[in-house]
């Protein structure tokens, strides 16, 4: 009895190990296109994590217009996505959150330099807790003593952008040269990612924080108010998109890029806090 139980457990464990080994070496979304028989075609889109919500909506739009096509979207940090593509992951479209990672793929010869074009913009915005009694109405209030502020740490891109914004703001006559020091002395925490900044301000743990405008969406968006940062001192991130040289379905991939650039695509993206590419 015990022997039988042991043996079947051992067999199961071996099978499990085999299954893990055989799947571990494949990339996500590695289905081969099956266009020949007129059956389903798979388009692999690698998109920056910040695009998750609008991309899901655009996916539905695209699949409705192309009945035999299935869109597989791989969301991750842009740097991870670029690494995966360089390591041979099959991708048709790459939508990056910054030019740096796009350039990395152009340098690797995976993307033609002329193929990359900007498709959406993102900018910084100040959010404040609606529960806060710190009296925040204007950018200059961020430097008021006693305000509890949360920023992203400089180790992540948005944290560096925030510091760049503070440098620009310090040169602004309305905010004054002591603005940056005033703001930095109010910081209680440097979070390791921008979603944590948003969450802690939405919870009311801090009075205000600085995030991407595209982060102020979702169920908790109503818990925070926004203070716009003027374009002149804002840091605007431009997202580039490109079809890869090795794409199995370059025509279809082009159509997907065109959908993002179209009025429909831009409208969806702007509903999620992004800025249209042609204002």
């Amino acid at each position, binding site marked *: 009895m015990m022997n039988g139980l042991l043996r079947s457990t051992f067999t199961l464990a071996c099978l499990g190990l085999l299954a893990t080994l055989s799947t571990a070496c494949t990339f996500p979304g590695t289905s081969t296109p099956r266009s020949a028989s007129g059956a389903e075609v798979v388009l692999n889109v690698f998109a920056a994590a910040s695009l998750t919500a609008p991309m899901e909506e655009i996916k539905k739009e695209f699949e409705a217009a192309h009945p035999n096509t299935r869109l597989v979207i791989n969301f991750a940090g842009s740097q991870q996505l670029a690494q995966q593509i360089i390591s041979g992951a099959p991708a048709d479209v790459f939508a990056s959150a910054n030019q740096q990672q796009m350039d990395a793929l152009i340098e690797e010869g995976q993307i033609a330099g002329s193929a990359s074009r900007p498709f959406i913009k993102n900018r910084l915005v100040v959010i404040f807790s609606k529960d806060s009694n710190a009296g925040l109405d204007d950018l200059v209030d961020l430097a008021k003593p006693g305000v509890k502020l949360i920023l992203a740490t400089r*180790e992540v891109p948005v944290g560096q952008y925030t510091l760049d914004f503070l440098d620009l703001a310090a040169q602004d006559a309305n905010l004054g040269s002591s603005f940056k020091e005033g703001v930095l002395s109010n910081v209680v925490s440097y979070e390791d990612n921008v979603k944590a900044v948003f969450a802690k301000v939405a*919870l009311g743990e801090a009075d205000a924080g600085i995030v991407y405008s595209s982060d102020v969406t979702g169920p908790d968006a109503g818990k925070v108010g926004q203070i716009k940062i003027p374009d002149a001192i804002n840091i605007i991130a431009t997202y580039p998109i490109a079809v890869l040289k090795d794409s199995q379905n370059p025509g279809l991939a082009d159509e997907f890029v065109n959908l993002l650039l179209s009025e429909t695509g831009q409208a969806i993206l702007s509903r999620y806090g992004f800025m249209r590419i042609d204002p």
Partner: protein
Amino acid sequence: MSQPELYPQLRGDSALQTGDGEHPTPAWISTTRPLDADRWSRYFWRVLAIPLLLFFLIPIVLLFFRISPAQLLKTLGEAPVQQAIGISLKTTLISLGATVLLGIPLAYLMGRHRFRFKNVLDTLIDLPTVLPPSVAGVALIIALGRRGVFGAWLDALGIQIAFSQVAVILAQIFVSAPFFVRAASLGFAAVDAELTQAAQLDGASRWQVFRYVILPLTEVALISGAVMSWSRALGEFGATIIFAGNFPGRTQTMPMAIYLGFESNNLDAALTLAVILVAISFLSLLLVKGLVSRRRD
């Protein structure tokens, strides 16, 4: 007086030595078995034990080879690295003190008293050790954050815990104290009732019985529990970054600095701190193991 088995994994005798003739052969094993079969059995288990052992060892050992001693010393001189080490040591020592002071009464209650729902309470105490630390962090924010149940009340009194070193210490106590309570209560439970009764008959007061009979007998359990709890507090990351935030020089502990160093391609700082943490953890576990096996002998 035999000490309770606190951490079987820390036992002095190694499971790998099975078959080395340390244990007398049980009667049900035929003594006429050929020697070759014994040897075969020994190699069989040794070979099967290797994969997992290597899986533990290789990554940890490679950490030490990834950074040169010169680079390690140079990074150790950097202010942010020193700050992180300082904050980790300061907060973990305070949380250890609080854990021992507040943990002994709870452990004593659990170890030497019987009451209703004891099993439920016992399970509740163990809960923080199995919960993901992120759950602990969110729970602490909900209880003690500025808009939390008790936090709002403290806030009205002008006391703010979140984003302070107090928050770091509370997060460490929350996740690490159960290790101490568990070990200490097993220790208290193992003290023979005859000994305490004898002391009482000789006229010792309740306090004297605790101080001069029970405490010395549970010394090993208390020390090993404290060391386990301290190592856990030193490695605490998830609850801290949620509840206490990350501010270099104020709330940034070693595990946080390791994570941020890794994220920002500052691998040297991350590796230096990682190597120090591994060394501290290894030495403290070794200390506990040594203590436990010495007292048993």
